[in-house]
């Protein structure tokens, strides 16, 4: 059973995703900030990470992604460098920006971006697709 870590500071969003994923046989662990997320990654070793962009600050999610994808061989997260990252963002609404892995992947290796609110079907589709690719 694949373990999915959801890092998002919105309790209700986490809950909605957790229910959707658990009902479909996934094991879900939640963290409510970027720092907590990084700590949890090491203890849980998730198969996939769902990451919100804006948490304690506007780019907390990006910082987590950056730390995970660090090319530094001595990085404490080196083992999770290839863990699929699904980024959930509402930043495009706030900042007028859109992200996609094809154009923005060079500077941030994220496997997929989804905009909030994510319909349950879309979430499941993306999670399954990413897990099957890795």
């Amino acid at each position, binding site marked *: 059973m694949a373990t999915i870590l959801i890092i998002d500071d919105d309790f209700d*969003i986490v809950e*909605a995703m957790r229910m959707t994923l658990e009902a479909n046989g996934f094991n879900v662990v939640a963290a409510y900030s970027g720092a907590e997320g990084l700590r949890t990654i090491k203890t849980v070793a998730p198969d996939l990470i769902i990451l919100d962009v804006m948490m304690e600050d506007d780019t907390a999610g990006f910082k987590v992604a950056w730390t995970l994808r660090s090319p530094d061989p001595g990085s404490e997260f080196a083992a999770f460098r290839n863990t699929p990252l699904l980024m959930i963002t509402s930043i495009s609404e706030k900042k*007028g920006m859109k992200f996609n892995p094809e154009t923005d992947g060079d500077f941030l290796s994220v496997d997929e971006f989804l905009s909030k*609110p994510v319909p*349950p079907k879309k979430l499941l589709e993306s999670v399954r697709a990413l897990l099957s690719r890795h």
Partner: protein
Amino acid sequence: MDIKEPPLKSDLPERVRWFVRLRWFAAGGTILMGLLGRWAVPEVDASPLLYLGLAILAYNVVFRSLRPWLAARLSIHLQIFLDWLALTVLCHFTGGADSPFILFFLLHVVLSAIVVSQWECFLQGLLAIVMTNTMALLEATGRWIPPSFPGVPELPRYENLTYLLIFLGAFDAVILSIIYLSTFVVRQLRRREASLLELQDNLRRAYHHAVEMDEAKSRFVRIVSHEIRGPLAASQSLIKVALDGYAGGLNDKVRELLERAERRIVQLIDYVNELLDLSRGSQRLPEEDKTDILIYESITRIIKESEARVAEKQLRLNVQIEHPHVIFRGDLQDLERIFHNLLGNAIKYTPRGGAIDVIGTLLPDNFFLFKICDTGIGIPAEELPRVFDEFFRATNAKKELKTGTGLGLSIVKKTIEKYGGRVAVTSVVGEGSCFSIYLPVITLDRSV
């Protein structure tokens, strides 16, 4: 509005410079006159004119050099005083009260009226009167004899003291009248200048205030909308999860209620999104954030996204875009927002089986004209001028579709105008509407 004259003080230094500049010509003219006099009338001693010219030159050099140290006001008064003295000497050597140069007193009075205040000008005028009258009386009474010119009769104004007094009286009156009139006109001009400056200042302040208010409004809308959007997205996610059955089974009534709640939330999210679009529409875009966008690609994508709705209403969509290589320099989301709103409206307000034409063509002045015309319900003529107002919806549109924010067209207008373009509309109720947008573009090749 009480308008005061602008203080003379502020431009006095400039006036000092101006006076000094003019005096170079006066000094040069006097020296030239002395030299010409020597050559043309050798029997008359023209050297006093040469010395006078040099004296004018000398005190002008002094005033120019002292400019940083001598107070401008004192400098001006000293200069005028020395000018009176120089003019009096010039007149004395060129015919006294009959000298043609006596008219230069009048000219200098006008110049003084421009640079000093009214009462100071009157004082200076009185000095000029005292000097000219004293010179004339001294000359008439033989105490300061002017040089005589060969072939020129004795100075007629000195023949008769009464006649000389009448002449001097008239001359003094003219000087005083000119001072009064010149200072009056100058004061009027200064008042007008002050009122213009004040008006300009008020306009500048009002403009900055309006810009600040507009930015504050946009910022407010952005923050509030985001704060609203977060909880709305969370609510929608929870309801969706429940509706999809992940929280257990639902009976029909609960399902119906949740679906209704979700529809209302979607409405609210749309509303908030439009408010965000509106605030973004008026936000200026930094040059580095602009990208080159192929207009053709962008409109094609929006049309593709709308295909399902077009098919559902069995509409005929006719697209004719000429010059496919034309580039719009800006934000892709802005451009798509414009097309999305206009095409969306055409689809929404055109009855089943109707037609929509999308025509794009390049105009000679590097503007791209887009026309989106439909055979929809149209807009009542009396409401046409208000269709781009925020929150305005035409009466027949409200009847046709209950929901709608009335923000779409104001978003379109603001976004287009941000790029220096414009939007226009023509419409006939029951026949349809035609929106024309003019976008500034870059053409890769004139032939495309």
